[in-house]
């Protein structure tokens, strides 16, 4: 098990109103081997420094996007970041293998309850399905993909006292990813977004 370096790219355009993600971000920041980037703070005018971002990618093993779910996807700056940073010749295409064997992971929060993200539910699709574009980005860039970790019902998480346990769970996961005790292979078929709440990943890892 070797230590892994994690690049945490956080996107929240209205942090004054944030109840879940801001707390989570400041907790994750403190973990060893994490480079925590507040994208809206570094690029308030969306003027993304492509070279710098590519350099950061090269220096890390695991890339995490952290954001609140906006219209079944990320806030705009993450899309902007992908459009600019994941260039032809760097991330994909001829000699575009710089991200090969790195890992992509989504950490998000959704307003609706898990029951809404079902075929019969209000949102018609499980969240993992809705986030397929990220999975395909990972695939095209020859990266591994860990299923998203989601906090459902985020609008009432504070009132229900679910923020602290969620933050602890995410921190444990990040620690395990960083010290190498948990890798993309540990997950197998587990879909973190819709099943993580029931499955104990660390145990699963021990079995593997």
């Amino acid at each position, binding site marked *: 098990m070797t230590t892994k370096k994690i690049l945490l790219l956080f996107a929240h355009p209205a942090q004054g109103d944030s109840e879940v993600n801001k707390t989570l971000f400041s907790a994750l920041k403190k973990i060893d081997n994490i480079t925590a980037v507040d994208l809206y703070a570094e690029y308030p005018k969306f*003027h*993304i420094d492509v070279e*710098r971002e590519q350099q950061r990618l090269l220096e890390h093993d695991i890339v995490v996007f952290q954001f609140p779910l906006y219209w079944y996807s990320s806030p705009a700056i993450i899309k902007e970041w992908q459009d*600019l940073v994941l260039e*032809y010749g760097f991330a994909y*295409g*001829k000699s575009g293998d710089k991200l090969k064997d790195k890992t992509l992971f989504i950490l998000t929060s959704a307003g609706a309850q898990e029951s809404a993200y079902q075929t019969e539910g209000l949102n018609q699709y499980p969240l993992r399905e809705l986030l397929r574009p990220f999975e395909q980005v990972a695939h095209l860039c020859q990266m591994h993909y860990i299923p998203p970790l989601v906090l459902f019902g985020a609008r009432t998480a504070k009132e229900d006292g679910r923020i602290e346990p969620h933050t602890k769970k995410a921190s444990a996961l990040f620690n395990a990813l960083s010290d190498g005790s948990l890798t993309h292979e540990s997950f197998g078929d587990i879909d973190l977004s819709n099943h993580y709440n029931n499955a104990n990943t660390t145990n699963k890892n021990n079995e593997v």
Partner: protein
Amino acid sequence: MTAYFIQASIYLLAAVIAVPIAKRLGLGSVLGYLIAGVVIGPIAGLVGQETQTIQHFAEFGVVMMLFLVGLELEPKMLWNMKTKLLGLGGLQVGLSTLCIALIASLFIDQWTYALAIGLIFSLSSTAIVLQTFNEKGLNKSEGGKSAFSVLLFQDIAVIPMLALIPLLAISALSGSPTVAEDAHHGYSLVDGLSSWAYAIVVLSAIAIVVVGGHFASRPLFRFVAASGLREIFTASALLLVIGIAAIMSLVGLSPALGTFLAGVVLANSEFKHELESTVEPFKGLLLGLFFITVGAGIDFGLFSSMWLTVLAATAALMLVKFGILYVLATIFRIKNSDRWLLSLSLAQAGEFGFVLLSFSVQNSGLPDDISKLLALVIAISMFLTPLLFIAFDKIILPRFELNTNASQEEDAIEDSAPVVIAGIGRFGQVINRLLTSNGIPTVVLDRSVDQINLVRNIGIKSYYGDATRHDLLHTAGIEQASLFVVAIDESELAIELVNHVSHTYPHIKILARAYDRRDGYALRQAGAHHVVFESFYSALELGGQAMQEIGFHPFHVEQLKQNYIDTEQKHDSSLYDMWQKAQGDSTMMQHYRLLFIKLEELLKESMKSGREDKHDSSHQSWAPPPKNYLKELRED
């Protein structure tokens, strides 16, 4: 004449030596002045009987201090204080007078004497306490504010006390008090008036101060300030304070109360900070002189013969006052260290005690031997006050430190420190509007009276004053500021100002507006943390508009503008280095020029967007992959 010079030199020398030493030892300036007085008076015997005369003159420092206190206190704040002012202050004076009078009556047969002692001792020392609060930065604490309410009530209560003491004398001696009164009242407008006429005169005097202060002082100051003569402004500030003191004395009111009212009236005025910085040195010197005379006036002969009585009386006095304040603080829900601060800081008797004492003797309200003893008690209790403050700092405060820290952190966001803005021209106005409309407090300074008038008319709160003058920056509160914004036109002055602030207050972040590039570099060298060339962004904006008019796509124009800024910033540091070298060595100027020309070329280069032809660039491009890229992907 020579005698005056020698005397003045003795007083000044004592202060110059004793005060810095006391300050260095953490005793505070008040104790330093007191010690200086003791040394030149009772110990060395360099000064003698004239100290009493000087003391009456130096009491004017208290009047000036209350004017400054009033300036810091807007009428709205005064209204908010009313519960504490009347409740806490009233109860403190009432209960202290009563308790002390009761205790005194155990030793003195004459009940009127006992009551006079109660009145004299119920007052605390505004001069020592406020001066010390100022030095220690305790003004804004809960304990500090409560202590201030009490002191203010006491200062007002002096007036009825002055009226009451002659009445006590009448019932005590049933002799003719008129002789004594004649001796006291030199000039007075109210002698021999009937009571209703007296009331009218008093009310109209107060009206003159309030209305005159509000309406007449501004045109006067504007007129004087427009002349640009510093010393005339100083003269008019002194005229205001002394004039009001004169009016008040003429009608038999406290000059301190009058100047305090005038201060409150002017608290919203644009001349507030200028007045403060003008009056401040006079106040400081006079108060210092006052404390020296208190020290010099200590009668060691009497003390050595009756030291036990004196010390016991002093201890009893301070204990009683402390006890009453502590109980009152508990009733008024003043908590933790603030309760201790209030009770300890006001446990002494004060300078108004001396005033009442001499007045009582003149009016036969007290016999001379008791009065000498009382003077000693007052002086010693004042002498002990700085020690109580040290005890508060060293013993009480550490016990409550954890609590106060926690609460301070919460306050920080709500009650954020103000941003000081120098210059309220077109540039400063935009900055000020942006900040204030987001709830960030600002203190705006400008040295043009016309400009202040203009922006005050459109509701921008601003103050007259030359920000390049160091004392004015101090009274405007630069020490507590979170940021300092320099937006004044004169580039030489701006550089000097940045230089001064960055050296004197290294913890304050400085944001400066520059006229051009070289000006900006000079500001940066002087210590500005962030510099913006005043025309840069507006020129870029209009340039971009021109590109759009010519037919460039608006989003493309936006990128090109950003490229321009990036290239500038990238090469800014090397240009700055070269500029710095060229400052000391004129032959380097040629290199600076060459570098500048190179920047021109780099700018042209950076405008060729698209990363295919410029792989080392970091500019955004959204470049599409090559036409045949799908084939490659399949090969993979």
